[in-house]
Each structure stands twice: as C-alpha cells, then as structure tokens.
C-alpha cells in the first residue's frame, strides 16, 4: 500500500509545481502587457512644472468613446491590455493626445465619467507631501509605470480630482495646440482663491487676477511665462455642484463642432459663446456623459510675455 502512495505524492507535488509555474507565467504575461506608453516618442528633455501634460478618460463604453472622439477630432487609437482591463491611447497626427480607460459601471450606480487631468511635477512623492499638507486627499498612491513615469491622483481641498505626473520621457514642448489637441484647462471651484493658493503651493504658479464681467472670480495660473489654466468660481446658480477640472480641445469652428457632437451621440452642456479671448467656447459631453470643452483660437492677435 505504502509503495503505491509515493507516486501519488510525487504526482501531487509535480502538479503543484506546474500550477506554480503557470501562475508565474500568467503573472509575467500580465505584467508585460501592463505597460503604458511614454508621453513623447522620441523622448524630450523639457520639463514644465504646472503644465497639463496628459488626460485620461474613464468610460463605461470604450468602443462608443473611440467612435465619438475619432469622429469628432480625427483621433486614432492604439489598444493596450492593462491586465484584465482595456486602455486605448488616442493619437492625432502621430502624437499621443490622451488615454481612454474602460471601466464598467453597474446599471444601479450613478457615476460620473470624466477626463482626469495630469499636471507635470518633477517629483511625485514630494508633490504628495505638499498636497497632503495643504489639505488634499490621496486617491491613488504614487506609482511608477516605467515608460510613462511616476504618477499619483489626488482630490484638492475642495474636492476637484486631478493627477500629478513626472513624465519619464519629458513634458510636451510649449507649442500652440493644433485643432483636435487639448489647449486649455479650467478649474471650476467653490472658492477659486483658496484653490489657487493650494495649486500655487503645489506647482509654484503665478496667479493673475482677471475678474469676470459678472463679478465672479477668474484667476489665471501661469508658469514659464505661459498661462496654464484658469481657476473659476462655480456659478451662483450652482452652489451645490462639485468642483472639478474642465479641459478644452482646440477647434476651428465651435458652432460646427457643437453640432457634430450632437450627431455623434454627445450632448451640449453650454451652448457656444464668445469668451474673453475673443473666440467661441462651448461645453459638451461625450455619449457616456464625460464633459469637456471646445475652444476656438485664432493664431493672430496674441502677445507672448517675456520675462
């Protein structure tokens, strides 16, 4: 009897070893496929602290999002497996303009798809310390993706969600965005002044005051002698709405693009209107409800400030 048991034990042990190797192999495959691409190819050497350098959309319907943004801006997509998840990098003229991440939402859940704003920092861990000291909450701890860089996600003291990223391939140079590229970012906050102080501590922004004609607070946040973002007051009629970052894509014709949004299954949240720079803006939502802006910007009548 005992002699028959030994082969059985050996078989069990061998089975365990094979299973362990299988787990190891599977993990290695997942790890190898979970690589996020660099922001710049080839890598650059510029770094622009406080600049919005990347955006990731979290959406419950990746194929619908790709169809929408591809149809609207001519973006093309490269799919990447992040373990069991799907992630797609959007490109315009060969340049990466953002990422689209699929995450299912249960029908009973009331969740807000959104574009997550990544702002450049030289040191994510130092940024984390500063952010927390200034009242931010950590939503995702610092993590390194070798090609992309090190990143973390926070909510600011008023609840607006944003990310910081130390890009491993450098930050995109300061060129005028082409139509179809992100051109501007606005922080919509309950108290823009307090939030400007928070982001100034984090990114070293120069803060310029620029009151709106309706009396609401409108601040310009700048680094490297370039305007990087604005901090705006939540409208009086929306006192209970959530602070958030809103990002704008440059377009040639806001009216036409707003109409196109409707054709592609999106919604118009703010109808086209003339803004302080003289061009038209609009705020729209993609088919899953993620909001973003459209911004007309002509190349003329612009003055860059030199130090």
């Amino acid at each position, binding site marked *: 009897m005992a002699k028959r048991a030994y082969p059985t*034990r050996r078989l069990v042990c061998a089975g365990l070893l094979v299973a362990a190797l299988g787990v190891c192999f599977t993990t290695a495959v997942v790890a190898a496929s979970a690589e996020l691409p660099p922001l710049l190819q080839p890598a650059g050497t510029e770094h622009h602290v406080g600049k919005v350098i990347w955006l990731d959309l979290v959406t419950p319907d990746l194929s619908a999002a790709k169809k929408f943004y591809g149809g609207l801006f001519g973006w093309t997509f490269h799919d990447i497996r992040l373990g069991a998840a799907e992630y797609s990098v959007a490109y315009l003229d060969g340049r990466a303009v953002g990422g689209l991440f699929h995450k299912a939402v249960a029908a009973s859940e009331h969740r807000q798809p*959104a574009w997550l704003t990544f702002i450049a920092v030289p040191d994510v861990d130092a940024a984390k310390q500063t952010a927390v000291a200034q009242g931010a909450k950590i939503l995702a701890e610092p993590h390194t993706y070798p090609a992309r860089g090190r990143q973390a996600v926070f909510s600011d003291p008023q609840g607006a969600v944003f990310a910081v990223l130390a890009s491993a391939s450098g930050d995109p140079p300061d060129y005028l965005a082409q139509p179809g590229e992100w051109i501007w970012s606005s922080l919509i906050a309950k108290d823009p002044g307090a939030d400007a102080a928070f982001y100034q501590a984090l990114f070293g922004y*120069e803060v310029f005051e620029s009151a709106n004609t309706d009396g609401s607070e409108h601040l310009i946040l700048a680094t490297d002698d*370039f305007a990087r973002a604005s901090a705006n007051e939540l409208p009086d009629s929306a006192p209970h709405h959530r602070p958030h970052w809103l990002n704008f894509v440059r377009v040639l014709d806001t009216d036409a693009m707003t109409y196109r949004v409707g054709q592609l299954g999106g919604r118009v949240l*703010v109808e086209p209107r003339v803004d302080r720079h003289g061009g038209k803006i609009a705020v729209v939502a993609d088919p899953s409800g993620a909001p973003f802006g459209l911004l007309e910007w002509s190349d003329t009548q612009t*003055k860059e*400030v030199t130090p």
Partner: protein
Amino acid sequence: MSPVLRRSLAGLMAVAIVLVLEACVAGPGYEGGVVEASYGADFYEPYGYDYGGWGPGYRVGPPRGGEGHPDHHPGGHAPPYRAAAPSRGMPSIPTRSRGH
C-alpha cells in the same frame, strides 16, 4: 527510497514552490513588485457636474496675453494666494507653432 529522504525531497519541493511564487511576486521590475494589473487612475469622479448656471458674463477661456490685471484683490482683502506683481503682464497660452 528511505522515508527520511522522501520527506526531505518533499520539503525541498515545497520550498522550491514557495520560492517560485515569491519570485513571481517580486519580479524583475521596479519598487519590488510587478506592474499593477489594474490602472491606478481607473475610478469615476463623484457625480454632480452641471453647466446650466453659466451667465452671459461667465468666462473661463485663456487670455490673449499682454493685458493688465488688477493690482488689488476684489473686495479689498488680501487674497489667500500670492498675486503676480502688477508690473507683470498677463501671459498667454503658448503660441509658437511646431516647426518654427
């Protein structure tokens, strides 16, 4: 094969399995761990955006650059941030085209 030798071999095999699994977890990567199977920014924001309240004077867009800006905080009190010096002109967004 003696019982002692069999037990030793079984023990060695168990140790080997543990080492293999540990190697998988530690991996050759960074921070002593593998790349996360999930993405760290894969969460939805709290629900509650509304854009219905933008009055006609509400502005969010970038400046053209070179404009002046007030040398005092609206309301007269000191702002919670360090305001740019009044002598500093309002900057624009980058306007240099690629290839120039």
